[in-house]
């Protein structure tokens, strides 16, 4: 089913050769770091591409879903903190139970009380007093939790499971949030929906930033357990030392002096352990990416995918043919968000830390959208290509700009104020590149670099 055309093979070759090129110029470690982020970006892009490219449902809440995935990584992998549970677990339990009770009460009132005015009055009364009572328990509990050992804990901790499970849980978390957002907002026109999802993602992030009992907030969570070995363990493992010796045997045999050889071997082991860790990550991520790619493609070619395209291209006609547009929109919005959530969990896994204040819309929503548009919406390979190319240029923009500025100002003295100012602003040129790339693509290749295939079936 996955037969690539010639130009698609060409793009894949370009992507691979870019990393080999960087590997030779800047070192394999740098190349692998970029590769890992590229794969994660590609997964995010596929998530957005599924809702936007397949069904035309806009999702500007990428940042919020990523953060939910990150939260899942913390809640799954961090060991539970017993004292915090003791301090506030009961209070939280009570307030949660009360919240459920409140929701049930409101639903009951909506069902039984028919007169509109009475319903409004009853509802607002019960919500107001309900929230007052819940707040009492909730604030007490969270205060107690945040007081437990605030320097290193101060939150509930997690389940202490291997972090790799969080990739699935992160998807579920994001899907849950997306379900609520979708229920509320999916009826809106596309530009309204963009603004609303953008806003709700800000709300999600601000909750994660300030509810310290849950996510430690701006104090960040560090030291999450890795799914791959640690460098220090590798450096002391016999099999790894043997592997490095075996791989470099010709190089090592040329060195006659024993202590020199040991020195070289040690350096090789230290370098090798870093590369080994990054490579393991890359393989794990690649597996996830290929699985998602496989299913996304299969879904696109299935009758369901055909229905989605029908809904995207003409909602009214699809509705007239008996397709439940609202339901399908919700489904695809949730699926897209879930994939973004998986990517969010993977991102935190890779970094080993969770920093809620690091989630900014420019970096985590708009860049992803540029990836989608540049790659080609509606085409999964395009989405992957967009993720790779944009992340690659995002990283390599800085060295490139430094090079260009140095070339342009070669006639100026090294202490020239303009030259210094420009060199200081090198990090900001990447925004310029991103904007220009987006504008150029939208103008001259509006369907993206690898456009969606027109199917006549």
């Amino acid at each position, binding site marked *: 089913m996955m037969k690539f055309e010639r130009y698609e093979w060409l793009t894949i070759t370009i992507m691979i050769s870019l990393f080999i090129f960087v590997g030779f110029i800047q070192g394999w470690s740098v190349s692998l770091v970029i590769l890992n982020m590229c794969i994660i970006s590609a997964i995010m892009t596929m998530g957005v591409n599924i809702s936007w490219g397949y069904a035309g449902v806009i999702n500007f809440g990428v940042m919020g879903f990523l953060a939910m995935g990150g939260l899942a990584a913390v809640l799954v992998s961090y060991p539970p903190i017993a004292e915090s549970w003791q301090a506030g677990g009961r209070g939280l339990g009570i307030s949660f139970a009360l919240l459920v009770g409140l929701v049930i009460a409101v639903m009951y009132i909506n069902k039984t009380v028919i007169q509109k005015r009475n319903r409004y009055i009853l509802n607002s009364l019960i919500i107001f007093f309900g929230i007052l009572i819940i707040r009492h328990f909730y604030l007490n509990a969270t205060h107690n939790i945040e007081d437990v050992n605030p320097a290193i804990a101060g939150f509930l901790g997690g389940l202490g499971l291997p972090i790799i499970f969080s990739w699935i849980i992160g998807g579920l978390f994001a899907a849950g949030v997306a379900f609520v957002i979708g229920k509320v*907002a999916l009826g809106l026109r596309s530009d309204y929906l963009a603004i609303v999802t953008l806003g*709700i993602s800000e709300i999600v992030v601000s909750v994660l*930033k300030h509810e310290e009992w849950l996510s430690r907030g701006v104090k960040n969570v560090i030291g999450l357990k890795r799914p791959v070995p640690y460098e220090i363990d590798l450096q002391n493992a016999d099999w790894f030392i043997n592997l490095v010796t075996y791989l470099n045997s010709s190089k090592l045999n040329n060195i006659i002096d024993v202590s020199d050889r040991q020195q070289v071997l040690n350096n090789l082991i230290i370098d090798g352990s870093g590369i080994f860790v990054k490579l393991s990550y890359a393989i794990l991520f690649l597996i996830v990416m290929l699985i998602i790619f496989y299913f996304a493609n299969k879904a696109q070619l299935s009758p369901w995918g055909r229905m989605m395209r029908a809904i995207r291209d003409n909602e009214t006609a699809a509705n007239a043919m008996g397709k439940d547009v609202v339901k399908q929109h919700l489904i695809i919005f949730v699926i897209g968000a879930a994939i973004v959530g998986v990517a969010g969990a993977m991102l935190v896994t890779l970094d080993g830390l969770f920093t809620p204040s690091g989630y900014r*819309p420019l970096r985590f929503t708009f860049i992803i959208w540029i990836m989608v548009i540049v790659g080609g919406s509606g085409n999964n390979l395009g989405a992957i290509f967009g993720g790779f190319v944009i992340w690659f240029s995002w990283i390599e923009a800085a060295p490139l700009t430094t090079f260009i500025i140095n070339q342009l100002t070669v006639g100026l003295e090294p202490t020239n104020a303009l030259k210094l100012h420009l060199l200081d602003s090198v990090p900001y040129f990447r925004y310029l590149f991103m904007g220009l790339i*987006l504008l150029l693509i939208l103008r001259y290749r509006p369907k993206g670099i690898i456009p969606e295939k027109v199917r006549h079936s």
Partner: protein
Amino acid sequence: MIDFLNSIIVLLNFIVIPGISYGSQLALGALGVTFVYAILRFANFAHGEIMSFGAMITILFTWFFQSQNIGLGILPTALLALPVGIIATIILCIISDKFVFQYYRYQKSVPVVLAMVSIGVMFVINAIIRIIIGTETIKFSDGQKFIMKAKQFKVMTGLNEGLALKSSQVITILITILLLTFTFWFLQKTKTGKSMRAFSDNEDLALLSGINPDRVVFTTWIIVGVLACVAGTLYGLDKSYKPIIYLNLVLPIFASAIVGGIGNPFGAVVGGYVIAFSEIMVTYAYKKFFVYILPSSIEPTGLVQLLSTDYKFAVSFSILVIVLLIRPSGIFKGRVL
């Protein structure tokens, strides 16, 4: 009686005056967004950066005037630099229209594509700003800082509570009144304004009546430039200038425009104040107010705060969502200029 007066002063000092000045800034910003939406028919994500750009040019010229020792005495020098900033912002708007937006308008692209294009413009302007002025926080208000200090007010009236009046707040309110009056006069009374309203109401009919669309668009960008630059500068003058803030400001501005009814200038202004006041009122701790107004036996012990100030931005969005659910066209029916 004294307690009652004190409680009123508390509300005035911490809610009403900050609310009006913040609301004015939002209203000017939302007015710009609504103009673009009504005439050019897309959600302009670059509006925050346009505001930031105007403020940046104003700051650069403020520094220039300060270095030349040209000032306005007790008024901030920024007011002198503001016209230069406005002209630069208008030029920026017109350049971005000529090189970017115009093409899609002629192509009759769907609004979502134009919104994406505006994201590209946002990135470019954002980069230009950061390259020119960096990312540091800049305070550029000079002249007399307070019109009335809290202490002076206490001495004057003999009340316990002070009422502070920053000059930036008064300037914000005055300029807003001036600009709003002018804008509405322009829309209602002048020929160009009327043609803009006609264009916004029904494009085809307006074209048939011989209205020149390029002229309407050109005028729109001029108005948007003026509004954006003034809003950006006033916000920077009142708080402080930080490039990153303007990206976050886009969300409450959109919220204001939509809550008031997008495309409706009067709604945008009202929406600005609604958003500003709800942000402040929901996150303000009312303890002091209740201490004055209630008898001491039932005084509150907590802060009496609905939500912590961390959720300021969340408030504006919750209101947006609620309004969209109950009345999707906004408080005043949108889409008519």
